[in-house]
């Protein structure tokens, strides 16, 4: 009951004309940019972050939440109409979504995707309310050792669950940590990796890095690839699913919501795993599994619902522990830090208004996106026909404004361009960006926790394994590492055997 009254308070806070406008603007911009091929949620948020600068924290967080969800909705449209997934979680949607679109059922696919996403996101939001508060209360007993182990496990899970190559994901995390070391060190307060440049004393801003890597890097990659897209047309008359479509997928949506939410709650598992699991589950439960891959509506409803339910589930570790499970959540966490919040177990105690405003915004955003997406799908689809040659100058301009406005410094703009070139290399050589962003956001906290834990234990390193919660978290990380190592060795052996044959 307490949680519900807090949620009500959150709605009271956000339901002002200005905040509603910001939520709608965030949904619209998130969807429009998320639709652009190749731009996943992380890139969308990175490009749109400057729109929240100069705002009060609550409207800024509402807009950021709307952008996160809007970009997910936009990504589905690209998967269905272009067969180009904006992120790994949308890969499965392409399988049946694009086939449905080719069979003239693009409207049904987009419609069921919007309805499933709405239900998954909203019901997942209810789960969030009931898990977030007890988890945050439980995590109050966490000391620096537990926090260090939790961040360590969270980063490892992101590495093991995402990306094709574990070595590359690990390198991405290490690079993110490396960039964190620039600035004042958390022990002695001495400048580290600063080289006498005063602007580097505060470290490299997270915003500068993400806009460079995801915004400028994307522009450079597109300049090379000259992506030409051929979108399928969606007439206005075809943008609603039929009642039979909705009826047929009702249990799919229920199953995907539960599965997606719990996948999201696990640090690192998140949207990608949930969408793949949901697709597999629906295929195994279907009476006609042979239709999957040829345009089965359950193959769209399941992964899309699970994806959005996972997005709500991911908010649990984010809001109660301060641990992001995905690149887009790391961006949201970065946005919260920019707004002056200190994410972590104490967030719910120190800034309950903001937390409940974000949770209320999650429901509002899903509702706005449902209303916006069903009738406006043809308009969003039209965005795909805009030439990229006109879009990338706009992306560049927004990134420049974002970088400059952080400290009114041209130095930051230059650093962003450098990271743009680095981001181009990362994309070119298939290094996943999400682990780096997560390490970048959590790196300082991770290092500080390490030092604090050792200080409290008078330098005794066994403190990490003698404290029960920390030991369990590290044990989980160790088990994951062993399992993944065995899997990798098995795959390598299979490759060598195949090569011999």
């Amino acid at each position, binding site marked *: 009951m307490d949680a519900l009254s807090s949620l009500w308070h959150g709605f009271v806070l956000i339901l002002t004309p200005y905040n509603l406008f910001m939520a709608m603007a965030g949904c619209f911009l998130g969807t429009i940019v998320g639709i652009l091929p190749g731009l996943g949620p992380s890139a969308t948020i990175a490009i749109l972050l400057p729109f929240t600068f*100069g*705002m009060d924290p609550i409207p800024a967080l509402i807009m950021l939440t709307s952008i996160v969800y809007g970009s997910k909705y936009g990504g589905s449209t690209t998967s269905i109409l272009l067969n180009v997934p904006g992120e790994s979680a949308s890969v499965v949607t392409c399988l049946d979504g694009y086939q449905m679109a080719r069979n003239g059922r693009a409207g049904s696919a987009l419609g069921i995707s919007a309805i499933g996403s709405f239900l998954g996101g909203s019901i997942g939001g209810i789960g969030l309310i009931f898990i977030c508060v007890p988890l945050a209360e439980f995590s109050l007993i966490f000391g620096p050792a537990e926090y260090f182990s939790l961040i360590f496990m969270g980063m490892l899970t992101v590495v093991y669950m995402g990306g094709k190559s574990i070595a590359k994901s690990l390198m991405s995390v290490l690079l993110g940590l490396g960039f964190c070391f620039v600035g004042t060190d958390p022990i002695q307060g*001495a400048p580290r990796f600063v080289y006498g440049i005063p602007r580097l004393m505060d470290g490299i801003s997270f915003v500068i890095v993400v806009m460079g890597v995801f915004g400028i890097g994307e522009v450079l990659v597109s300049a090379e690839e000259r992506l030409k897209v051929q979108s399928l047309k969606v007439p206005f008359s075809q943008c609603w699913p039929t009642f039979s479509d909705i009826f047929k997928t009702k249990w799919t949506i229920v199953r995907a919501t539960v599965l997606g939410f719990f996948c999201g709650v696990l640090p690192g598992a998140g949207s990608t795993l949930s969408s793949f699991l949901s697709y597999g589950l629906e295929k195994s439960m279907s009476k006609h599994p042979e239709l999957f891959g040829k345009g089965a509506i359950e193959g769209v409803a399941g992964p899309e619902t699970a994806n959005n339910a996972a997005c709500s589930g991911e908010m649990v570790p984010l809001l109660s522990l301060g641990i992001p499970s995905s690149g887009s959540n790391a961006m949201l966490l970065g946005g919260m830090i920019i707004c002056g919040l200190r994410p972590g177990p104490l967030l719910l105690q120190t800034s309950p208004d903001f937390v409940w405003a974000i949770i209320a915004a999650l429901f509002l955003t899903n509702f706005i996106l449902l209303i916006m997406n069903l009738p406006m799908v043809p308009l969003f689809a039209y965005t795909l026909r805009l030439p990229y040659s006109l879009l990338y*100058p*706009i992306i560049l301009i927004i990134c*420049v404004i974002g970088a400059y*406005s952080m400290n009114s410094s041209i130095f930051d703009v230059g650093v962003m*361009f450098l990271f743009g070139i680095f981001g181009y*290399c990362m994309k070119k050589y298939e290094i996943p960006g999400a682990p780096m962003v997560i390490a970048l956001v959590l790196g300082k906290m991770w290092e500080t926790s390490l030092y604090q834990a050792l200080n409290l234990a008078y330098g005794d390193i066994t403190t990490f394994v003698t404290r029960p919660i920390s030991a369990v978290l590290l044990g989980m990380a160790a088990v994951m590492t062993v399992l993944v190592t065995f899997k990798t060795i098995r795959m390598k052996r299979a490759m060598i055997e195949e090569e011999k044959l």
Partner: protein
Amino acid sequence: MRIGDRVFGMICLGLSFWLIIEALRYDYLTRFTPGPGFAPFWVGVLLGLFSLYLIVDSYIRKNKEKDEKPVLPGRSSLQRIGLIIIILVGYTLVLMPIGFLLSTLTLAFLLLYFLEKYSIGKSLLYSAIFSGGAFLLFQYWMEVDLPKSWLGLGF
């Protein structure tokens, strides 16, 4: 991606050496806790090890896997990327002296006219819309303080 892996492995190996060498300049341990050089040192070591793994692995699987995409951009792509980078560097240099509006107008015009081969009229029109729109939106509506020219104006 095997040559790509080698290239990226080399870049990261270089970064790892830099991290390790720099980390050695700071205290490794204090009385009870690791010093400022502790974490950078170990991150550098791990980055170096994974970079080596990536490089060695790319040689081990040389027979099986062929590069799907070219490792270096083609000549025309390289020219486009190079031109964008040159324009961006130039833009960074002139942003403060001539202000946001004029420099951004020039940036957009150069990209559209020279790179995208729009006609001069269209390039000017689109550049004016993009830079003017961004200026009005951010400077006046969102009250972001954009660089002003030496005349003290926004352009």
